[in-house]
């Protein structure tokens, strides 16, 4: 019912754009607040429609999936959640999908955060992943199959120290359990004992710091998920081979979900993003029409 109403309203919003275009051609360009209203409608209505969009998996995402597929059961994976709730709509679905993949493939998952809110986001992702039937059946144990080392302040210095010894930065985990009492950390002293680093980043400290220190200085392998705004800054590292795979923004998340066959939130959100992109494109076209009309008037 809700989806039907949303679909009907969405068509109405789409058709009303024709009227806006007509007004623009007549020399009445729309003001900022109308643009805001359209964006609000074209993001929220598609979310209520509950539809998904078919996403083609790009090479950057496939590279990350290939690297994960190469890992064997028991591989130690460090998941660094370096973001806060603000970026969660883009990054949290990636985190959940990654956790599901890691647990289903029996990886040992070590979670940490260079942002204070990161470990909490990781807890939420783990909680959601654990609801999956296959994962629930595995009866995974905290401290043996996964651990949350928590947050440590010091940004890139934390990565720097982890290069020599994890324990120095995380003497206790997020639950105050001593490092040495965690069976999963028994034979992990630094990056040389970690098979793959997966970083979710919304800024600094984030992927760039992980690449520059953990990858370049300590030889770790790192793949990442970034917000769409942040992703262009990471592309040069992807091309140079320093970064092993990149999930860029909502589309990256949706592609990742498709590539590992885990239907999640990103697959739904991408539909709303698609419609809102279409709206922005429509406004850019109208903006140009208004611009040419104004210029023509000025010349006349």
């Amino acid at each position, binding site marked *: 019912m809700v989806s039907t109403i949303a679909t009907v309203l969405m068509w109405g919003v789409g058709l009303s754009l024709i009227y806006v275009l007509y007004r623009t051609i007549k020399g009445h360009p729309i003001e*900022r607040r109308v*643009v*805001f209203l*359209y*964006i*609000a409608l074209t*993001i929220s209505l598609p979310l209520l429609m509950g539809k998904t*969009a*078919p*996403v*083609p998996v*790009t*090479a*950057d995402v496939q590279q990350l999936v290939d690297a994960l597929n190469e890992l064997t059961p028991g591989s130690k994976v460090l998941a660094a959640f370096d973001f*806060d*709730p*603000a*970026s*969660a*709509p883009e990054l949290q679905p990636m985190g959940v999908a990654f956790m599901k993949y890691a647990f289903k493939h029996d990886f040992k998952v070590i979670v940490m955060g260079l942002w204070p*809110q990161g*470990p*909490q986001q990781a*807890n939420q992702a783990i*909680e959601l992943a654990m609801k999956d039937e296959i994962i629930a059946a595995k009866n995974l144990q905290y401290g043996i199959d996964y651990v949350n080392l*928590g947050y440590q*302040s*010091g940004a890139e*210095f934390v990565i720097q*120290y982890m290069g*020599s010894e994890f324990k120095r930065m995380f003497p206790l985990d*997020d*639950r*105050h*359990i001593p490092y040495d009492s965690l069976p999963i950390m028994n034979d992990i002293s630094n990056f040389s004992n970690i098979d793959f680093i997966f970083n979710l980043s919304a800024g600094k400290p984030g992927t760039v710091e992980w690449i520059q220190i953990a990858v370049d200085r300590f030889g770790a392998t790192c793949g990442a998920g970034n917000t*769409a*705004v942040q992703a*262009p*800054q990471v*592309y*040069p590292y992807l*091309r140079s081979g320093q970064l092993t795979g990149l999930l*860029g923004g909502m*589309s990256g998340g949706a592609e990742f979900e498709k590539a590992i066959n885990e239907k999640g939130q990103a697959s739904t959100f*991408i539909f709303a*993003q*698609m419609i*809102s*992109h*279409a*709206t*922005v*494109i429509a*406004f*850019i076209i*109208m*903006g*140009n029409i208004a*611009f*040419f009309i104004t210029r023509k008037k000025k010349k006349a």
Partner: protein
Amino acid sequence: MRREIPLIITTVAGLVFAVSYFIPHWPFGEAESIFGDWVAIIQAFAIWLGALNLVKVSLEKIYRKKEDALYAGIIIVCLLLTIAVGFYDGFTGGPQSSFRDTGTSFDWIYRFVYTPLTSTMFAMLAFFVASASYRAFRARNFEATLLLIAGFFVMGGRVPLFHLLLKPFTDVPYFSEFAGWIMAYPLTAGMTAIMIGIALGIMSSSLRIILGIERSHIGGGA
């Protein structure tokens, strides 16, 4: 001496950090760790400095009954409440639990107050991106037109929009691949050039700071 001591600390720390990048042997590797520890400790204590300043400025606003005294009051109440809840959860949760654990009152604040608030701010980007694009993407001249065309293809290609429009004719995601190509080559080339310029700028600035030529940041003229 008020200027000289910070300058000496800057020069020594700067040189040690630079040298330890190339020399792992003691004492350089260790010195880098020691300076790092100092940074972490100072940063941790500095949080209090900021919090106290925030309280002081807010209390002054309330005392002087300024226009935004109401907001200042909300800040102080929220600050104290969050700290109190965190302490309460931390002390009552048992030895092997965290105030951040799922189900604690702090976690409730995090999930249902903090998360929606910051998400709202971030979500405002959607509106601002639209209004900025509406203004900025105009075919004023040749370069702006190129930017407009690239923006058009990336915006349509990074989501399945153009792919869906093309689907009746072909399954090959040409537009998605083209958007990927723009991101992978022209964008990376431009970004790399900007980053090289920035790296050199950082290097030159760092040298000026280490050599004591640039002193504005320690409250001094050049």
